[in-house]
């Protein structure tokens, strides 16, 4: 398929994933911060940090308001200048979709465009004021609907595979970021000595990843830091665990390379295999010994590097044969992207 189109497929799903994850986090935080005893700084600020926007956020609000839940939600939901806000991510997803309408199905386009038209409507703002939980659920559900529609209406070939590659890579990075929330709230995780309210916070982190029930199917004990981290990093079957998504990235890289030469996608596949191997060789004990935050930072940085390798391998291939002018100006959104990626990294 056309490289530029593949790139849009890849980023379309990454942005949809961002909308979904951020909406779920905001909705969960809204619902669950009510019954936990937390210091003001631990309630909302971590979400801004996870989004990679702390610096920008602090520039925009007066210090006393920096931990005000309303301000944080407003900023993460609606702010058009915050590249990580729900609004900006949905706009980017929709713009990618608009660019490749001939590639995605009509139903996918309508779902996404509908959500965009709605988010910009008075109705959406009213719902945000009156019933925030339903507001965030709607965003999250429409993203899930989008995946279902894609699965049911697209040809299961290269464009779809690049979309799913985007989802898997985004999930691996997002889960690592989310798992770091407690680090941003209370500092380094000490698995041996956790205060009683930690359980509630680990539960919240599982909810951020829609992982409570899957977690309970693995363990019946109360969620501890070590248990939750182990689950989110290593579980082979949980839809949002890092290892599972690296496996999926590997599968999709194989699929999109099929039909090419032995060199097609070589750099990405090699980097993925190394990363996956390294993660699989760890255990939760070694991770905690090294420091959870350090491991998570490594994962976030590596997924960004993988993204760049995929870009070089598939989206901006250098045509080697013969004449000169074939290396042209592919400068779509990757620039905006790598900057928002960069911001993501600085938080980790």
């Amino acid at each position: 398929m056309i490289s530029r189109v593949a790139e849009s497929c890849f980023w379309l799903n990454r942005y949809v994933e961002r909308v979904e994850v951020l909406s779920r986090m905001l909705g969960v935080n809204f619902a669950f911060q009510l019954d936990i005893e937390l210091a003001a700084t631990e309630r909302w600020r971590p979400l801004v940090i996870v989004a990679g926007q702390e610096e920008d956020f602090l520039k925009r609000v007066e210090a006393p308001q920096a931990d005000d839940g309303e301000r944080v939600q407003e900023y993460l939901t609606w702010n058009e200048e915050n590249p990580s806000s729900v609004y900006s991510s949905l706009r980017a997803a929709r713009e990618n979709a608009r660019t490749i309408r001939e590639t995605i199905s009509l139903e996918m386009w309508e779902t996404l465009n509908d959500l965009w038209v709605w988010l910009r409507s008075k109705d959406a703002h009213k719902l945000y004021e009156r019933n925030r939980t339903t507001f965030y659920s709607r965003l999250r559900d429409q993203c899930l609907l989008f995946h279902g529609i894609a699965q049911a209406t697209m040809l299961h070939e290269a464009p779809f595979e690049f979309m799913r590659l985007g989802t898997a890579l985004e999930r691996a990075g997002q889960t690592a970021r989310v798992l770091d929330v407690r680090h941003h709230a209370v500092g380094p995780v000490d698995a041996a000595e956790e205060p009683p309210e930690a359980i509630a916070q680990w539960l919240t982190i599982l909810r951020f990843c829609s992982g409570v029930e899957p977690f309970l199917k693995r363990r019946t004990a109360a969620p501890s830091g070590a248990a939750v981290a182990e689950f989110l990093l290593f579980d082979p079957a949980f839809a949002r665990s890092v290892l599972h998504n690296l496996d999926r990235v590997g599968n999709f890289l194989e699929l999109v390379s099929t039909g090419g030469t032995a060199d097609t996608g070589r750099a990405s596949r090699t980097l993925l295999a190394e990363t996956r191997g390294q993660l699989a060789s760890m255990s939760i004990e070694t991770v905690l010994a090294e420091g959870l935050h350090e491991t998570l930072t490594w994962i976030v940085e590596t997924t960004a590097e993988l993204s760049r390798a995929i870009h070089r391998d598939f989206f901006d291939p250098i045509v080697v044969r013969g004449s000169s002018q074939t290396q042209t100006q592919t400068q779509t959104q990757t620039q905006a992207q790598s900057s928002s990626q960069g911001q993501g990294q600085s938080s980790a």
Partner: protein
Amino acid sequence: MAVTRDAQPLFERYQTLAGTWDEYFREDGTPRSQARRIVAELERIGVKEFRARQKLADATFLRGGITFSVYSDRRGAERIFPFDLIPRVIDPARWDRVERGLIQRIRALNAFLADVYADQRIISEGVIPADLVLGAKGYLPEMQGIRPPGGVHVHIAGIDLIQGPDGEFIVLEDNARTPSGVSYVLENRTVMKKVFPRVFAQSHIRGVEEYPLRLVEALASVGPAPDAEEGTAVLTPGPFNSAYFEHSFLARRMGVPLVEGRDLYVEDDRVYARTTLGPRRIDVLYRRIDDPFLDPETFRKDSVLGVPGIVRAYAKGNVALANAIGNGVADDKGIYPFVPDMIRFYLSEEPILGQVRTYVCAREEDRKYVVDHLDELVVKAVNEAGGYGMLIGPQATRRERADFRGRIEADPRNYIAQPRIELSTCPTWTSKGIAPRRVDLRPYVLTGTKGTWVLPGGLTRVALVEGSYVVNSSQGGGSKDTWVLRSGSMQGDAE
């Protein structure tokens, strides 16, 4: 679809304009036979329900993202092309003549282009003055001696038609380069079916859905390899182009890739696309990039939209471009007055469709007449489109006319003039209820090596502003669905 009992009738106060053909009503106020069914149905619906359905239609366009971008808006605003729910209805006999006339005209325009870029018999035999042809902006000397694959120049044509006071369709303008708007024809129809399912079930309307398939067929027929559908693509300037929706729509409905210039490159005079699995040959392009921007090696050096070297590949016959390069000479407003002569010259036939009497200011005698009669005439700059560079004499101020007189004297080659035609009207929804508004029609004509096909109907554009004659979307125009009725669907309704 409940209809309120006290439905207020829609057409009660409808008044046709004097001296103007109305598509629905005769001067005595009775509906024409082809409009009877739809008038009855609209009356049944009533004002309130009509309003509700107009809202539904607008929402459907917005939801579908059936929009055009507005260049002036930095935030990338998209607007819907205003759509009027009351359809234009054309009876089968009238359409039959239009169809034959269009096919004839396209054959002549195609023969003209083939001749201009080869032997130029039409000039040497004195049918059209050489300076009008060779001095036209759209004439590209670089194309001299190049025969496009299959000998087809005008794969896709949009011929603008109007109906004068007698109701006969005549040609107002030719477009043999990249006529746009066909996506609205198809989308308008889809929306109408959704909004008026009952009317559709009863009305025996000829379908328009096959257009993309006909188009891909015509494109494949001119490919260097026979039926090489896999190497066909639509070439767009990109998502910021105002017609991007249409480019994407056509690619989607033909099932071919949509590419931008930067997705393509030329090597060994062949065109390749950059794909995730390496280079892939492309041999047919439906290009929606204008000639000057197509190839910085041949035309504008500053174009970043085009593909360097693509003209070389084209000249070698390694890629077919639709439409061919250099077609601008055929739809030049200065050439238009000679199309009837062209038809006689190349086809030895009499033109089936009439056209508007045109004064060519390059001719001394015509120029004098135009300058003396500016208050009666519509003056058009030859190289402008979209309703720009135009003077509507009867509506213009004294100063505007003086200004145009100066421009004509300074550059006569660049101006033509025509009497103002009382464009036909069609009932149209306005803030004051249903009122007559002027319309034109752009049918679409496809040509491959296997023949020519006319889309039944086309894009009806309507001047939504009261008293306006300008139907262009950039200047307050909207569109309507266009119904060509099936023959035999109006038995006993002879008019």
